[in-house]
């Protein structure tokens, strides 16, 4: 089933390939990681302003699916958030 779906997606990416006007075009937004920019912010347990953006009200760590952080940076983020929690900063 998965293979078939992939094929279908590829075909429907081009709007001219649509079978009818009412067929849905599947637009996918691919967001880029906000932390991997050149000269981006430093991920550190002292940088509370940055860490607070990636934490819920109850100080739970937000998943990278929601924040679109790359997997490498997400690993670093979780480690730094845990360090800040040890010191009672978060």
């Amino acid at each position, binding site marked *: 089933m998965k293979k078939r779906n992939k094929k279908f997606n590829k075909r429907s990416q081009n709007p001219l390939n649509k079978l009818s006007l009412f067929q849905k075009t599947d637009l996918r937004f691919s967001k880029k990681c906000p932390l991997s920019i050149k000269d981006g912010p430093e991920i550190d*347990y*002292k940088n509370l302003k940055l860490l607070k953006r990636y934490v819920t009200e109850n100080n739970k760590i937000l998943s990278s699916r929601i924040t679109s952080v790359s997997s490498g940076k997400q690993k670093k983020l979780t480690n730094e958030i845990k*360090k800040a*929690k040890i010191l*009672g900063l978060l």
Partner: protein
Amino acid sequence: MSFYEQTIVTKQDLSAPEVEKVESKYADIISGASGKVVKIEKWGLLNFARKIKNYNRGHYIHIKFEGNGKTLEEINKKIKIDNSILRNLIIKYKKLNLEMEYFNKEKTEDEKAK
């Protein structure tokens, strides 16, 4: 020799000279055990996110130093006995960032004004 950053959280009810004593005590321990203090930052009295051992606030002392395994052993020994310390965190770094001070209010406000 490698670089380390140590953050000490002390109890709220210490007076100002007592906090300085704690600071100088650990600086002496580091320099005594084949280490070298690079920089000391005072973050002052900060609120905790949640209560730690029934305290709501604590004095934060941040020490950046150079040392080896022996210095860490010595520090950990002394901290275990120390009653005035609530939390302690030592982290190894390849390179120390001496310019950025996240908890220096005057400096951060100056950067905003610029």
